[in-house]
């Protein structure tokens, strides 16, 4: 019975317990609008998480994701502010991200640099290149324009905040993609065991390159939501620890760093737990340090319970696990 409890279910259970606790203990928590804003507040984290999950399922990781998001979208805004057509600028921004993804993929798949180092370095390169050649200011503001594009991060569709809609769309597309497309299935195979995948005839290297391209494109989507939500893009985000929050959401949801396992549902569960936690703690008006302590204790508890119920053994552990 206890063995049925994998990390996803444990985290889901913690989320439900917190949810019920906050609903009873905090007046105003259970209102429909608060629940929506709760999800809205973590939807960017969720979108990035889905991108990261694709990488981690394929036994990789992308630490350059936040840099790619920040620099491509900030560059887009710089171009639009200097008179370039919005769609052209968006196309160029996506193009930039694709190039970053391809370089990441080539480094990892063909040069065989470990993903964690390749993307760590790439993140710094992307930020440095962007700040030196593409973007002069640290905060780039949205142009004053009424195109619907600028409402992607704000406003609502049928009462649901747009960022939540985008999160749901990205989740849906990614889920279908991972479940039903050839690339999606290959991604699991590569993540589970590269050598086996290769002898089975799966084009391992192209799959890895595609993985990082996909992550970079999802990063742009997240960036567009960020920028249009707060009508600006702060390039200093690239220097923040946001990428660890993204990994936290993915790992918390139960996608193991050893690859080959998990799916979009795990990311949603992890994101919701963080969302409920942050929202509840803000309503309780807890101090900054206290919030951090609670966050890390809950993360630790989830991992601890998982390790106790599903101990690593020779069969599940893989060489090179982080």
């Amino acid at each position, binding site marked *: 019975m206890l063995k049925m409890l994998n990390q996803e279910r444990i985290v889901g259970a913690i989320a439900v317990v917190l949810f019920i606790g906050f609903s009873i203990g905090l007046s105003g928590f259970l209102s429909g609008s608060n629940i929506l804003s709760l999800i809205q507040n973590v939807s960017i984290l969720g979108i990035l998480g889905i991108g990261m999950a694709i990488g981690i399922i394929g036994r990789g990781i992308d630490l350059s994701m936040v840099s790619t998001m920040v620099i491509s979208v900030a560059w887009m805004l710089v171009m639009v502010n200097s008179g370039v057509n919005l769609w052209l600028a968006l196309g160029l921004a996506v193009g930039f991200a694709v190039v970053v993804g391809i370089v990441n993929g080539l480094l990892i798949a063909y040069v065989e640099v470990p993903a964690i180092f390749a993307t760590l370095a790439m993140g710094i390169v992307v930020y440095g290149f962007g700040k030196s050649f593409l973007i002069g200011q*640290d905060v780039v503001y949205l142009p004053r324009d009424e195109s619907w594009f600028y409402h992607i991060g704000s406003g609502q569709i049928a009462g649901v905040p747009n960022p939540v809609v985008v999160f749901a769309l990205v989740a849906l597309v990614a889920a279908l993609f991972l479940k039903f497309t050839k690339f999606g299935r290959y991604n699991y195979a590569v993540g589970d065991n590269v050598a086996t995948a290769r002898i089975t005839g799966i084009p391992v290297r192209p799959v890895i390159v595609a993985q990082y391209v996909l992550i970079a494109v999802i990063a742009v989507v997240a960036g567009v939501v960020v920028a249009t*939500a707060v009508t600006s893009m702060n390039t200093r985000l690239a220097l*923040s620890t946001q990428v660890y929050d993204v990994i936290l959401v993915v790992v918390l949801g139960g996608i193991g760093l050893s690859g080959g396992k998990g799916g979009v549902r795990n990311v949603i569960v992890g994101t919701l737990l963080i969302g409920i936690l942050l929202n509840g703690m*803000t309503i309780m008006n807890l101090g900054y340090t206290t919030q951090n302590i609670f966050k890390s204790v809950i993360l630790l508890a989830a991992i601890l319970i998982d390790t106790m119920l599903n101990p690593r053994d020779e069969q599940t552990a893989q060489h090179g696990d982080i």
Partner: protein
Amino acid sequence: MKTRTLIVAAFAALGLATVSVAEPFDDGQSTTYYEQLKGKKVGFVPLSMGFDLTEGWNAGLQNQANALGYEVMVRDPNWNTEAGVQAANGLIAEQPDVLILHPLDMQAYNRTVQKAMKSGINVIQINLKSVTNGDAYVGTDWYEMGTKQAEAIVAACGEGSGRNGKVAVVQGMLATPTAQISGQGMNDVLAQHPEIEVVATQAADWDASKAQAITSTILKQNPDLCGVLGLWDGQDIGTAAAIREAGMQDQVFLVTSGGGNQAAACDNIQNGNFDAYFSYDVPGQARDLNAAVKILLQTQPEPGSAPFALYTPLKLITADNMSPASCWTLEELKRIGG
């Protein structure tokens, strides 16, 4: 042939020299002024280049240095305090006449300031002071900034305003001294106004998205909120987004602060994002910075012997008093700043 050209050239030079003997007017001080500044070296270690404050100051510094014939050397540590200390040490080894430091916190540069002064370099600190005094401080009094912002919110939501006095504080990164000192100023003012009720104090880490998330949650809990005390324009653009999305721009009074850049400040006042903005006026600071440099280069005091401060007069910008001169753009500062 060669010698003849040389002789011709020498005579030509002599001719030119005799022409330039016509000295410029000297009022008794101007000649020495120009002589004292010419060829001097100034080192500048900002927090990081590429953001509105440091780019603005640097534009002013370079303009004046070009006009008066001295050099300003910039070393960019890109937000990294350690790299900043290294950059400052590197500059100290080059023995500039004046060293300008822009500290991230009040401790990191303490020894650097002392080291520079010991080796005979005059030190200016900009917009945040280390605990150790240099020869000059140019910049914001962060305590005053906190009190002024709090006074603005008291005026909007406190006694006599006819409002309920419910206020939220969206803090910056708590570990930074600007946030701490301003926070103290805010608390001291709010403590004198019991009619103000602080319903939430949350830190947003200078991140606009976090500020938006926090503010949206606070607004859901307190639909009758009267005002928000922010701390930095780049973060409070997120606070403003949450207020706008909740449709409460007319109800919630948002006070924030920053360097007064056009896109960050005036544009956001015009579109209703911010209600009151306390600017530390980067063009004014650049002018003060240049003044401090010129004073030190001319008087060359024994480092640390006579520290002085030029605290920036804070400028309140609202929709009512805003004029085209309220804010600045970098292009403009590069053209005429300093």
